[in-house]
Structure formats: structure tokens, C-alpha cells
């Protein structure tokens, strides 16, 4: 600016009157420009900082939850304790039903075995003191209760294991994990501690010996939720549930929304009725999400007899909820596409449908994808509508298909959030959120990539 004035001084190009007026206004306008641009940059930076803050918030809390303390024990599968009959095999003349019956009986028999004793025996080898009568109760608390089922499943899987000794890593009780991670002040008096003094003493020695150590928690990813054995609760069920739901949303809401938007923007006659439809769709976006749950419960479960707590229903409900987002996003972009493109195609003898599908839609792809990205992100994090279709549930199984009962990641987050154990309402929820964000980003990755590819300025 200064140099310019200098140079115009040395080179007295007489400016016309209007050009002087222009020059006079420039200082102000450039300040405006700078201000505007820096406001824009600030806005972007603020947004990015917000993302960063939230991420730091989540990661700082959540990452430790990916590691959990586990104890390494040699378990002797004592035939004395495990007294079971032969594993049944299906006879050629046996019906499916009868065999299942027989197999169930055998499973029940295995289930009767006190696998806890195997664990305790293993424990006594590393803490001999624990075998004393007065400490047995304390010893039983060290390994989380769900692990006995892990041993049971090992036996059911392969009965030949009986009589052998195996080295296994067993998750310790959730409170031990809390204590070892230092989330509870070790100096507090006994009355405020969750663990008895004896257990604390043992755990301290064991972790010094490396028998108890922090291991990457595969259980968090492999197990379904658990309530009675908090340490072995995992996200697998919720993850699959969310995944199925999102697949339904992606394959239903997105195409349907785009189709509806195309009709409304390109084909529908412009009259009061379509105005009403437009207003109505905008309005649908403002309907509280729980209301979609009400609707879904009565329509999909009540009328169509779809199963309760199933990801399909969740997906359908979330699709209805996402639909307006996709429609509005698509319409907005369709509106912004210059009519000359349509005319060029029509003039060549393309039908309206062809003009739209060949020329307009490809140009609208980025906007459509943005709608899909935001819609899916929103649907993935939503819980309220799932409440009424039974998906805000405790489900101790991993769904094997979209028609199986399951829960969803945000639901899991809510449930863990309300758990009284701090491992849950602090670390694990954050870990679950990390998993949710990872799922969201991977679901959207393709869309983000495609969008970038289709973005072209002309």
C-alpha cells in the first residue's frame, strides 16, 4: 500500500475523478477484506480447535481403557473337578432337534462344573496365603467373574483339554484395574477403598512380579457387554449393531433421500402442494428424534412385525430420521446447478431424466455426499429413538445378522456412562466413543474420498 503511494508519487499518473474516489475507498475496503478473510480463518481455526479439544478430551480419557490389567495363571484342568460325560456327536439316524436337545443337556452338565475352583487353584500357586480359609473370599475377588465362562467355553470347545495345564491370561476384577491404574487414591483409609487390604497387598506384589500386568484389552473388542463381570464387558455387540444399522441407513436413507430430492426439485410441479411438501420435509428435520422412535415402534414393530431390539428396525427408524437431512442437502445442491447444463442436454435430445442423471447429478455428488456424511454421523450418534424400539438395551450377545437382538454404540456409551464404576463412566465410555468415531470415519471415508474426487469448479 505504502509503496504504491510512493510509486504513484514518483510517477504522477493523474487519476481521474472516479479513480480517485475508488482509491479513496480502497483503504477501507482492504481492511474489510482482511478482516473478512481473517474472520474466516479464525472461524476455521476455532472449529478445528474445538475438534481438537473434544478429541483430546476423549482420547486422554479413553486411551487407557484399551489396556486392562490381567493375571497370568497356570490352570490345571483337573479331571477331579471337571467330571463330565463324552461330548455328544450327531448320530446318523438322529433328528436335528433330538441332537440339539442332547447337546444342550451336555452343555448344561458342563455348566454345572465349578470352574471357579480351577481359577482358585491356579491362584493358590502364586499366592499360597490365599488358600487359607479366612482369605478365600478375598481370593475369589481377584479374577473377574466372567472368566470362569471363558474356561468353560475352552472345555466345551475341546474336552481333550481336561487333565492338561494351560497358561492363560485372565482379566482381573474391575476394581483391581481401577486401583492399579491409580484412579483411586491409594492413601485413602480402608473405609473408602473398594478393595480389602489383603487384596491390595496381593495385587501389589503380583504386579511387581509381573504376574498381573496391563495388557491390551482384546476383550473390549471381542466381547459383548457384560454387567455381572464388569471387567470383561466389551463393545463387539454394540459395534456390530451399529454397523448393521448404518448399513441400513446408507443403503436406504441415502438413495431414497436423493430420489425424493430429485423428484421434488426437478419434476414436481411448483405449486402449493409441493410447497407444503417442502415445508413438511424441512419440518421433519426438527422433529425430536425420540418421536421417530415412537413411530418406528408402532409401524415397524407393531404393523410389520419386525423383531424388537433388532438393528433392522433401528436402521429403518434412523433412516426416517436421516431422510430429511439427505433430502435437504441434495435439494440445496440441485438448486445451485446452473440451468444451462440442463438446457444443453435437453437441446441434444436427452430426456429430462437423462439430463438429470447424466449431467446434473454428477455435479451434485459433492453436496449429496455431504448430506450423507452428516446424516450418517448424526444417525450413528443417536440414542433417543432407539429407546422405544428396545435397542437401548443390555444385550449379552453379538448379533449375527441385522435381525438379531443387539444394542448400538451410542447406547452402550449411555449405559456405561450411567454405570457406577468409574472405569465405565470415565475411561470406557471414552474408549467407546473413540470406537464410534473410528466407525464413523471409516463409514464416511469412501464418501469423503468420492466427494473430493467429484469436486470441480467451473
Amino acid at each position, binding site marked *: 500500500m505504502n509503496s504504491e503511494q510512493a510509486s504513484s508519487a514518483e510517477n504522477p499518473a493523474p487519476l481521474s475523478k472516479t479513480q480517485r474516489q475508488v482509491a479513496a475507498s480502497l483503504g477501507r475496503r482492504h481492511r474489510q477484506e482482511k478482516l473478512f478473510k481473517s474472520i474466516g480463518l479464525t472461524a476455521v481455526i476455532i472449529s478445528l480447535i474445538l475438534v481438537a479439544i473434544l478429541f483430546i478430551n476423549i482420547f486422554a480419557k479413553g486411551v487407557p481403557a484399551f489396556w486392562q490389567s490381567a493375571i497370568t495363571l497356570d490352570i490345571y484342568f483337573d479331571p477331579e473337578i471337571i467330571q463330565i460325560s463324552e461330548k455328544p456327536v450327531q448320530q446318523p439316524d438322529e433328528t436335528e432337534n433330538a441332537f440339539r436337545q442332547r447337546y444342550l443337556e451336555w452343555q448344561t452338565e458342563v455348566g454345572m462344573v465349578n470352574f471357579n475352583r480351577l481359577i482358585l487353584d491356579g491362584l493358590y500357586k502364586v499366592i499360597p496365603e490365599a488358600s487359607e480359609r479366612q482369605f478365600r473370599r478375598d481370593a475369589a475377588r481377584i479374577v473377574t467373574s466372567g472368566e470362569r465362562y471363558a474356561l468353560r467355553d475352552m472345555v466345551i470347545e475341546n474336552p481333550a483339554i481336561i487333565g492338561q495345564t494351560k497358561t492363560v491370561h485372565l482379566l482381573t476384577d474391575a476394581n483391581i484395574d481401577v486401583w492399579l491404574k491409580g484412579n483411586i487414591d491409594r492413601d485413602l483409609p480402608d473405609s473408602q477403598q473398594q478393595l480389602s487390604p489383603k487384596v491390595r497387598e496381593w495385587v501389589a506384589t503380583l504386579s511387581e512380579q509381573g504376574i498381573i500386568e496391563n495388557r491390551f484389552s482384546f476383550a473390549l473388542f471381542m466381547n459383548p457387554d457384560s454387567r455381572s463381570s464388569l471387567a470383561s464387558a466389551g463393545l463387539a455387540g454394540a459395534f456390530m449393531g451399529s454397523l448393521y444399522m448404518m448399513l441400513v441407513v446408507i443403503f436406504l436413507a441415502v438413495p431414497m433421500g436423493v430420489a425424493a430430492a430429485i423428484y421434488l426439485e426437478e419434476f414436481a410441479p*411448483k405449486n402449493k402442494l409441493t410447497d407444503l411438501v417442502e415445508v413438511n420435509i424441512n419440518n421433519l428435520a426438527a422433529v425430536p428424534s425420540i418421536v421417530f422412535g415412537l413411530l418406528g415402534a408402532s409401524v415397524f414393530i407393531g404393523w410389520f412385525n419386525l423383531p424388537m431390539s433388532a438393528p433392522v428396525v433401528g436402521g429403518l427408524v434412523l433412516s426416517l430420521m436421516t431422510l430429511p437431512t439427505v433430502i435437504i442437502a441434495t435439494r440445496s445442491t440441485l438448486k445451485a446447478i446452473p*440451468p*444451462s*447444463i*440442463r*438446457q*444443453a*442436454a*435437453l*437441446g*441434444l*435430445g*436427452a*430426456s*429430462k431424466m*437423462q439430463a438429470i442423471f*447424466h*449431467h446434473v447429478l454428477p*455435479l451434485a455428488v459433492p453436496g449429496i455426499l455431504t448430506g450423507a456424511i452428516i446424516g450418517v454421523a448424526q444417525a450413528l450418534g443417536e440414542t433417543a429413538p432407539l429407546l422405544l424400539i428396545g435397542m437401548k438395551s443390555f444385550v449379552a450377545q453379538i448379533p449375527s445378522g441385522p435381525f438379531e437382538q443387539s444394542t448400538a454404540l451410542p447406547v452402550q456409551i449411555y449405559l456405561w456412562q450411567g454405570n457406577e464404576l468409574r472405569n465405565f463412566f470415565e475411561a470406557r465410555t471414552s474408549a467407546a466413543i473413540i470406537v464410534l468415531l473410528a466407525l464413523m470415519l471409516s463409514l464416511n471415508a469412501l464418501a469423503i474420498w468420492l466427494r473430493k474426487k467429484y469436486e*470441480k469448479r*467451473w
Partner: protein
Amino acid sequence: MTAIETNSSGKVKMTARDVRVFYGDNEAIHGVDLDVIENEVIAFIGPSGCGKSTFLRCLNRMNDTIDICRVTGSIKMDGRDIYDPSLDVVQLRAQVGMVFQKPNPFPKSIYENIAYGPRLHGLASRKSELDDVVESSLRRAGLWNEVKDRLDQPGTGLSGGQQQRLCIARSIAVSPDVILMDEPCSALDPIATSIIEELIDELKQNFTIVIVTHNMQQAARVSDRTAFFHLGDLIEIGATNEVFTNPKNKRTEDYITGRYG
């Protein structure tokens, strides 16, 4: 007001009777009667804003795409009313091609711009055939040499005149019966213009051409008949040499001799 030339030789391709066009409440064309004869080149001339493009767009119903635009009267092609609801406008537009006043290439590659129409109508079954169509169309529009090395680059990155020729090439690639050209040479230099004029001469053998131009010389050179529009009225229509040498109407004369205004 309208001057219809009745004793025209040749078969009538399109007839327009009492065509009126309204933009909202504004009447842009006030009852035009006009015949387009097969295999002729007919030129529309007239001052800017007199309704040439508007009338031209009526002939392949491109006006349908303008919300506020309404057309009355009858326009027939080969005896069929083209505004008949049962008529397939898509087929109509495939038969009656159009080059728009403002070049509007697709935001796609040059090749795709040309290949779009033939692909749409299945005019080429193999890639090589399509390549041929693309090449010959570009050649005929006099653009081939300039773009042959950059067929995969966007059509929107061409110069103004190149875009215009691209649009011409694009529309002849589908070989329509009738071609409507709205000032097809407005952005072209004399040489390119002469190529297009040659093209028009050549096309005339098989097709019917309606051309809007504000270039009197061009109208005189290429057209068989000329129609003069003024303020939404068709003032005069006749054999081109007649109109130019011996206009019946005072306003035509004034316009042609440049005395008007």
C-alpha cells in the same frame, strides 16, 4: 402484420401459426405465422431483443424449460403439432437440434461433450465408431486441429469461439433433421465463420437449418429465405435476395441498410 410467403417451393417442414410467447405477463412474440421448408436455410434477423431466440426456442420447445414462459398458437412439424401433449418432446428435440446463443459446453472433457449425444441415441455401437463421429463432427465444425491433442481436457477450458464451435459440433453429431442455430458465429473470426458457413451449405443437402444472425452479410450469404423480426412481430419474410435487395417493408429496409434506430 405478418407477411407470409405462400408460394414457396419445396415441402413444408415446420409451420407456425399465430404463435405468441409470454414471459409472465409480458408478450414477447405477438402472433407469428411462419413456414420452414425442408432442406432450406432460413435466417432470422432483427434488432436485439426482438424475439428471435424466443421464437427459435419455440421450434423445439426449449421454452418449456423456462418457468415463466408460455406459448400459444400452433407449431407443426411434418404436419404434427409439436405442442400436442402426446408428442414426445425428447424425440422432437433429437430431431430438432439446437445451438444456443451462449455457448454452454458440459463441464466434461471435449470428447465427452461431443460423444454424449451419439451415445444417448445409440448412434455408434463401438468405441471406434464413436471416435469417428467425434472426429468428423469436430472436423466439420473446424475445431479438430485445435483440440485433437486435448480431447480429454474440459470443454469449459476452451476459448469463446472454440466453445461455440464445440457446441455446433456437439449438435451436428446427433444428425438432427432440423438444426436451430442461435447466432452460431457470433464469437468466430471470419475464417472460422466461413468454415461454419460451408458446413451450413453442406448440411442443407440433408437437413433444414434455421439460423439467427445479426450479420446481414452472413444472412445474405447462407440463407435461402430471410425473416425479419421487429419488437416481437414478424415483419417480412421472403427469398433472401428479395428481402435484401427489394424489401417490401419500410422497417426492413431501414434495418438492412442500417438506417434504423
